[in-house]
């Protein structure tokens, strides 16, 4: 991961919520979606992903349920809650605002 990882790390929770807002999912699938959507430029570490799930659970943004895998380890599936959707919308607004401010400060396009 060569791109500005600190900038991205601060937004891990939002990225995960955005994926869960489309459908329920589990750790590896979310990471795989992130990888694909970023054109292989971003892959979260297992530990990062796990930490984010715990934070989101504690905040009441997501719930988990066990999958019914017949083989291998059982999976924890996550589902976004309505509080999670509200949190996602708020952080997307924050992000857009921050992006516009930074863009205008460094002379990029804002519109």
């Amino acid at each position, binding site marked *: 991961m060569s791109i500005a990882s600190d900038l991205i790390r601060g937004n891990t929770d939002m990225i995960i919520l955005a994926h869960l807002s489309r459908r329920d999912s589990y*750790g590896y699938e979310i990471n795989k979606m992130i990888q694909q959507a970023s054109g292989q430029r971003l892959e979260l570490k297992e*530990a990062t992903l796990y930490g984010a799930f715990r934070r989101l659970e504690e905040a009441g943004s997501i719930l988990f349920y066990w999958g019914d895998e017949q083989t291998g380890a059982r999976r*924890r599936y996550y589902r976004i809650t309505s509080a999670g959707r509200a949190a996602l919308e708020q952080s997307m607004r924050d992000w857009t605002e921050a992006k516009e401010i930074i863009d205008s400060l460094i002379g990029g396009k804002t519109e």
Partner: protein
Amino acid sequence: MTEKIKAHIDRLLQDAPKTRRIEEMREELLSGCLDKYEDLTASGVSPEEAFASVISGIGDVDELIKNLSSENVFDPGKAEKQRRDKAVMIGGAIMLFFLGLMSIIVFDEVLGLENLAILPFFTCVGFGVALIIFANMTQQPVKYEKKRIPLWKKSKPT
């Protein structure tokens, strides 16, 4: 190879306390690693390369263990509250003992009920002892501090 992955995760978590949250973490880490391993090998990556990729993709588990443990193991506010609760209970028990002694005097000397004097005495002492036992069973701040020490010993075998 899946056994190797499992062994690696077990090693990463070997110094972690055996709490429910750590066990859940072990299970979720393992399932994520196995998913990735199977996905990679299914897409044609060699088992060795897939293993290396899985291991390097785990990241900093120590930080997680520290966060999970600190919630369960040590909370200064909670420890302080427990210490105070225990002090109150012990204080209450001692008061009950004195009350017991006083009740003998009251029953015997004031009310003249010699035969019954023993009854309130044992009732008070009984409750006092029960309170002390209860205080020791439920309030154990000492244990909380003991557990903090060995957690973040670093072990990074690869």
